[in-house]
Structures are given as structure tokens and as C-alpha cells.
């Protein structure tokens, strides 16, 4: 098993029961205090750097816009900071929201720069961006899929084709694609696709032999989606390797299960409610979901963002793992054997959690959970040191 510390760099100062209808798109940026922001970036970066010191395999950054939920509108800037401050860990960008850029060639360039600067340590995640980002960018949500696919094809070709080429797609029309520099890793950095589990995405990731990453979901969804991924891989003629399955979730550890629940309550509820809050029309703008996925969402309406989830709900449904290291590693071992993932992306600093608590959580996870789970889910290639 590989362990990558996931971080959202959440803005932790949204008042409880804020009167704003959402913490996205229209939540006024006057609520962002740049002086506090200076401290916050430094604190969060130090947490990620510390992860390398205590043995994590990687650190993760991601992209969100116009929100207190995450303060990394440009994940590539954070990745550059981490490339300079770390030596060994993989730097996973999960991901660049590729449809939001007007020229995806720019992403091919930036990621190649990062791969060279980090000596080949970049994992390149690609996402569509979530619903509110289509409001934030005034970008037609009905085109998010076709822009995603076209941008993906363009970036992969930009990294792999030896000669300059023309690209005339529906969305992007480029006379010369010829990005300098090229990435260090051959043929290109590993591609990881974070998703909430849409049927179309699962199939597409399996088809391309990429790594599928399930983010913040109930344990029932995680199980279903990982099984669907394995079936999809079989449909495409191969067996999914554990390295192709990743699971991202908040984890909190303490001396007793009860103490862990008490201490995690506020940070979790803040993360899943106060800063994830938005109306359904913002979470799912028209055409963002295919009719197939829409039917699935309608069938399972209660969920993140649009209705309030208590810490107890989150723990009970397995959106998060909270307890003593023994409890947590026991569950992870059980789940790993159940659905066979090879990458775990714990979020150990989240919501309103202060730095001391976050650092202790990171240390505990590294010392009391990671060593027990390491041997699980290693594919043959990983054992041979290929991946």
C-alpha cells in the first residue's frame, strides 16, 4: 500500500451558521484575510513537508475556485513550492481542472516544468472541476465532458508525440502544439483521475489503464465503485491492479474512540457542511451530469453539499474513519481485503483543526497505522519496484 497525504488547504474561518447560502461562487472574498492567509499557507505547506519526514510516499494538492473549501485555485503553484521543499515524495496534483483552461497546452507545459523541477516526482490528476466551478468560470456545464476529453487527448499527445502537430478539435484549435519542456517520466507522468463515481468516468479510466481515485464517499459507494472499476477493466480485457485504485478520505486518530469522535466532530462538520454548502442548482448545474448519472443522483439524493451531514452520519456511513489507531487500521485492513485498493490518501489536517492537532494526527498515522498496512495491496509491479 502507498500512502499520500491529501490536503485541501481549507479556509478555517467561516463563522458557524453563516447566513450565506453557499461557501462557493458568491461567498464574498472580503471574508478572505490575506494576512491570515500568509500564515495558513505556511502552516499547511509545513504539514505536507512533514509528511515526507515521517515516511509518506506522496503529498497531494488540488484545484478549487472561489471558495473557502479549498484555497488552491492553482494547484501547480503549490506543487512548485512542494517540489522545492521536498526531496523524495511523489507530488500528486489531484487534479488540474483541465476544461477550465482555454488552452490545455498550458497545462502540458506547466506539468512538464514541474516534472523536470521535481526530478520526475509528479502524478498528474485530471478533473472536470465540480459544478460550482462552471458558475465561477461562466463556462457552459453541458460541455464539461467533451472539453475534458478533448483537453486530455491534446495534453497526452503534446507529451508523447515527437514532432510539432496541429490540433483542430471542437473546443481547441491550435496551429502548433509543441510544448517545451517535455516531462522527465516516460512516456509521461502517471495519470490519476479523482471522481465521485460516475459510470462514464469509471469506464473511461479503466479503458485508459489509469488510476481511479474515489473521493469522500460513503463506504457503500466506495465498495460499489471499486467493484465497478474491476468489472470495467475486465470488459477492457485486463485485470485491474491495486495500484489503479485509490481512496481519499479524512482520518482522525486519538487515544480512545470516544475522544477521537469528540475531537473530530467540529472539523468534520465544518468540512462537509459549512464550507461544502451550496444549493443543488450550483452543485449540479444543468447538463453537468449525464441523464444516466442524474438518475443515480436522484435515487440517492441525500448527500454532501446539499443536505447537512453530522459527524455521526459521516462516521457511521464510512465517509471518514475516526478512532484509535487500532480501530482505524483494523477497518482499513478489512476494507482493503474487501475491495483491494493499493493507494490510500488520508486527509489528516482538515476543517477547523489546528496545527498541533494536525501534526499529531499525521505523526500517529505514520507511526501507528502505515507500518501495519504497508504490505497490503502491493501489485507485482510495485513489489518489483517498477511503479
Amino acid at each position, binding site marked *: 500500500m502507498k500512502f499520500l497525504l491529501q490536503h485541501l488547504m481549507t479556509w478555517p474561518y467561516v463563522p458557524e451558521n453563516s447566513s450565506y447560502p453557499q461557501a462557493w461562487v458568491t461567498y464574498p472574498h472580503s471574508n478572505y484575510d490575506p494576512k491570515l492567509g500568509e500564515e495558513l499557507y505556511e502552516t499547511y505547506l509545513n504539514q505536507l513537508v512533514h509528511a515526507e519526514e515521517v515516511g509518506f510516499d506522496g503529498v497531494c494538492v488540488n484545484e478549487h475556485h472561489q471558495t473557502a473549501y479549498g484555497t488552491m485555485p492553482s494547484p501547480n503553484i503549490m506543487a512548485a513550492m512542494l517540489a522545492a521543499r521536498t526531496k523524495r515524495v511523489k507530488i500528486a496534483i489531484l487534479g488540474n481542472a483541465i476544461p477550465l483552461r482555454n488552452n490545455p497546452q498550458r497545462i502540458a507545459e506547466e506539468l512538464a516544468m514541474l516534472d523536470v523541477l521535481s526530478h520526475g516526482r509528479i502524478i498528474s490528476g485530471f478533473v472536470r472541476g465540480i459544478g460550482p466551478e462552471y458558475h465561477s468560470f461562466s463556462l*457552459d456545464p453541458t460541455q464539461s465532458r467533451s472539453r475534458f476529453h478533448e483537453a486530455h487527448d491534446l495534453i497526452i499527445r503534446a507529451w508523447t508525440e515527437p514532432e510539432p502537430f496541429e490540433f483542430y478539435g471542437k473546443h481547441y484549435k491550435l496551429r502548433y502544439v509543441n510544448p517545451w519542456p517535455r516531462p522527465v517520466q516516460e512516456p509521461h507522468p502517471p495519470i490519476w483521475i479523482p471522481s465521485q463515481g460516475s459510470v462514464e468516468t469509471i469506464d473511461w479510466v479503466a479503458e485508459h489503464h489509469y488510476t481511479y481515485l474515489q473521493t469522500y464517499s460513503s463506504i457503500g459507494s466506495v465498495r460499489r465503485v471499486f467493484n465497478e472499476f474491476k468489472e470495467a477493466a475486465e470488459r477492457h480485457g485486463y485485470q485491474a491492479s491495486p495500484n489503479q485504485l485509490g481512496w481519499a478520505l479524512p482520518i482522525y486518530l486519538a487515544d480512545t474512540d470516544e475522544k477521537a469522535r469528540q475531537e473530530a466532530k467540529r472539523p468534520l462538520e465544518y468540512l462537509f457542511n459549512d464550507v461544502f454548502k451550496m444549493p443543488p442548482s450550483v452543485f449540479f448545474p*444543468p447538463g453537468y451530469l449525464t441523464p444516466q448519472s442524474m438518475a443515480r443522483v436522484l435515487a440517492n439524493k441525500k448527500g454532501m453539499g446539499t443536505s447537512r451531514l453530522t459527524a455521526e452520519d459521516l462516521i457511521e456511513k464510512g465517509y471518514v474513519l475516526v478512532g484509535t489507531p487500532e480501530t482505524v487500521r483494523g477497518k482499513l485492513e478489512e476494507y482493503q481485503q474487501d475491495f483491494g485498493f493499493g493507494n490510500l490518501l488520508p486527509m489528516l489536517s482538515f476543517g477547523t483543526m489546528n496545527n498541533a492537532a494536525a501534526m499529531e494526527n499525521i505523526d500517529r498515522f505514520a507511526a501507528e497505522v502505515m507500518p501495519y498496512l504497508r504490505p497490503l495491496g502491493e501489485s507485482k509491479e510495485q513489489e518489483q519496484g517498477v511503479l
Partner: protein
Amino acid sequence: MHTVETVNVRGTNVRLLQGGEGPVLIYFHGAAGGGEWLPFLEQLSAHYRVLAPEHPGFGESDDLPDVDSMQDLAFFYLDFLDQLGIEKVGVIGSSLGGWLALELATLAPHRVSRMVITGSAGIRVEGVQLTDLFMLDDREHLEILFHDESFVQNRLAAASIGDTETVLLQARNRASVAHLAWNPYFHNPKLRQRVHRITMPVLVVWGEHDRVFPLRYGEEFERILPDAKLRLVRDCGHLPAQEKSAEFVALTHNFFSKGVR
């Protein structure tokens, strides 16, 4: 009395509601979708041959993947008129359908005899704050359309809430609206430099309390169109053809039959 048929336009099937005899009128529905033979259509069909197609991407009409803009949709409707062998037509466009009527009339003014636009999209008026329809929930969406609360209540009562088929149909309609009107928000910046081509008489009918496109929009259309006259409908919201159908029918009938504005 009306009939329902499917018209195939260069490979795209469109559902067409049609009734009456006489000079041809075509009604372009708005963002909420078509497919309903509304009372004002029935009343107008006493004097005219009234066509009410469902736009591609809406209701039971096919998708039209190549339509990326309102101008593309106007080109489609030129093919539609050719298909039906209609040379010249009176046009009524409501809201999003008003924008379509304007695009059609800039492309082919010789195909439009007279035109009524009501609560029309299509332009941006600087300094007038519009509510973002794409941020509203279902109920807020209904509430903003009507001035008379009883229309909202009747629509709510009639809506088959929770019926998956209806929800998916509405979702498809909304996706089609988003595709046409997300950015720029419900307008084509080029339209202002093309409206000089709209030389036929235009009647601009506006609800006094339109909260989707406020009255300033109606006034602006009257100002920039070469031959337009604004008629205000009192105690009315965004959809005069529905909320004040008798008054709307009287205005449009007088206009199409006698040229009275």
C-alpha cells in the same frame, strides 16, 4: 383543435403542434420548454394557421448536437420553414424564443412578415441587474416567472413531483437552455450591430412586473429596433401570453391582422 406530428428536418425529428387555418404564425417557446398547446395558441388558431414546434434539444424533439448558439438554432429554423414550404411567416417569440425570433429576423428578414417578441432575451442592457436563473431552485424558478401567485400555485399543483421521467425531461430542457444561454448570459453581443436588418414591424409586449428581463429590456428593444412599438401589460410577470392570455391574443391579433400596435 390542434394536431401533433413529427417533422424531419435534414435528419432531425422535431415535434410540431399545429392548429387553425389562414396566414401562418410560428410560436417560438422559451426556456421552460414547449410541447403544450397553450390557451393563447388555441385562441389565435381561430384566425391563423399556428405552428408551435418544440426546439431541438427540448421535450420530444431530437437533440441537435451541432447547435451551439442561438444563431445556429435560427439557421435550423430556416431549414424547418423550407421543409414545410413556408416562404414568409409571422413570428411570436417569448423569452428565449424571442431571442431566437430576433436571430432569425437578422438572418432572413425577408422570411418574416411581422414579429411579436415578449419578455425577450437576446441583448444585454448595461446597469440592469438580472437574477441568475441558473442559480434558482425549482420553486424559485416558477416564482420569478409570474406576478400572480395563483399561477405559481397551479403550476406547483400540476407538476408531477418526483416522477423520474419528468425530472429527466426538465433536466434535458435546462441543459439545452444552458448550452444556448450560459455564456454570454442570455444574449448575443453581436445582435446590437445586426438589428438594423430587422426592418419588418415589431410589436414588443412586456409584463409590467417582469422580473426575469425587467421592463428596461422592453424599452431598449423598442429603442434599438428600426420599426418597433412597446405595449405594456399591467399586473403581469415574465409571460404575458400565459398570465394575461386574452390581452395578449387581442394585441397580437390586432397587430397581425390590421397592423395595429
